[in-house]
C-alpha cells in the first residue's frame, strides 16, 4: 500500500506558523525537534517531517480503516536527506522525499520493494475545488491507461474513513493509490 503527501512551501509559510507556542510540541517528538533545529533550513525540515507523517498516515488508514489525529504518534527517523522511516506503534513505513525550494513531495510505502508510479504537477488555478478536480482527472487518465478500462467508466469514492477508492462502473479496482494537493502543487501515486 502506498501514501503520498505534497507540501507547497510557500503556501505552508502563509497558512501555518510552526513557531507559534506549543505547535512543535503537539506535532514533533524530541528527536524530530532535534532534526529541525540542527537543519540548515528549519522551515524545510519541519515540512519534510510533516509530509513523511502525512504520507505514512495515509498508508496506515488504508491498512486499518481508522482515522486519528495525533501527528506525534507517527515517529520519523531520517536515514538520509531523502529517505526515512515512519513508525506508528509496531508498523513501520518507508519514505522517500523529493525536496525542492518550492515543494516537498513524499511517498510512503508499506513494502520497501513495491514499485511506484507517481506524477506531480503544478496547477494554475489553485482554488480547492478546481485543483481537486484536475488531480482526479489526471489520476483517472493514468489508471484508465494502466488498467485498460475506459476513462468514462471510472469514478472515485471515499470510504467512511475518508480513504479514496477507484471504481470502474460498480466494480472496485484493487489498486492502492494516494492523492495529495497543497497550494500550487498536486500529485498522485499508485
Amino acid at each position: 500500500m502506498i501514501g503520498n503527501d505534497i507540501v507547497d512551501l510557500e503556501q505552508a509559510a502563509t497558512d501555518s506558523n510552526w513557531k507559534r507556542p506549543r505547535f512543535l510540541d503537539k506535532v514533533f517528538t524530541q528527536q524530530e525537534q532535534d532534526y529541525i533545529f540542527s537543519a540548515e533550513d528549519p522551515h524545510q525540515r519541519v515540512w519534510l517531517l510533516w509530509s513523511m507523517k502525512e504520507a505514512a498516515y495515509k498508508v496506515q488508514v488504508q491498512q486499518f480503516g481508522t482515522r486519528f489525529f495525533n501527528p506525534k504518534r507517527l515517529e520519523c527517523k531520517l536515514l538520509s536527506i531523502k529517505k526515512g522511516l515512519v513508525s506508528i506503534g509496531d508498523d513501520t513505513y518507508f519514505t522517500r522525499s523529493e525536496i525542492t525550494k518550492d515543494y516537498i513531495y513524499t511517498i510512503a510505502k508499506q513494502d520497501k520493494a513495491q514499485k511506484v508510479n507517481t506524477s506531480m504537477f503544478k496547477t494554475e488555478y489553485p482554488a480547492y475545488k478546481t485543483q481537486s478536480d484536475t488531480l482526479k482527472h489526471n489520476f483517472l487518465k493514468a489508471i484508465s491507461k494502466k488498467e485498460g478500462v475506459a476513462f468514462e467508466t471510472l469514478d472515485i469514492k471515499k470510504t467512511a474513513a475518508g480513504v479514496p477508492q477507484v471504481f470502474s462502473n460498480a466494480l472496485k479496482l484493487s489498486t492502492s493509490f494516494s492523492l495529495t494537493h497543497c497550494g500550487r502543487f498536486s500529485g498522485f501515486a499508485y
Partner: protein
Amino acid sequence: MTKEELIAKLKTIVQPYIQDEDAFKNLNENTDFINDLKINSANLVDVILDVEDEFDIRIENDDMEKMISVKAAMDLVNEKLAAT
C-alpha cells in the same frame, strides 16, 4: 455554556482555516473538520491550539486523537471544563 454557545465559539475558531464555505455555513455537531470543512491537517493543529487558548484548557495528544469533528471537540471541551 449552552450547546449553541459552544458551537458558535468553535465556528469562530475554525473560520480562518476552512476551505469549504457551504459546509461552514451548515456547520453542526456532525460536521467533520477534514472531510467536510476541508481544513488541512496542519491547520487542525492550529484549531486545537486556538481551542486551548479560547477555553484556557490543555489538550493532551491522546485526547487530541479524537478531535476530528465538531461533536468530538464539544465533548472534549466540556470534559476539560468540567474537570477544572
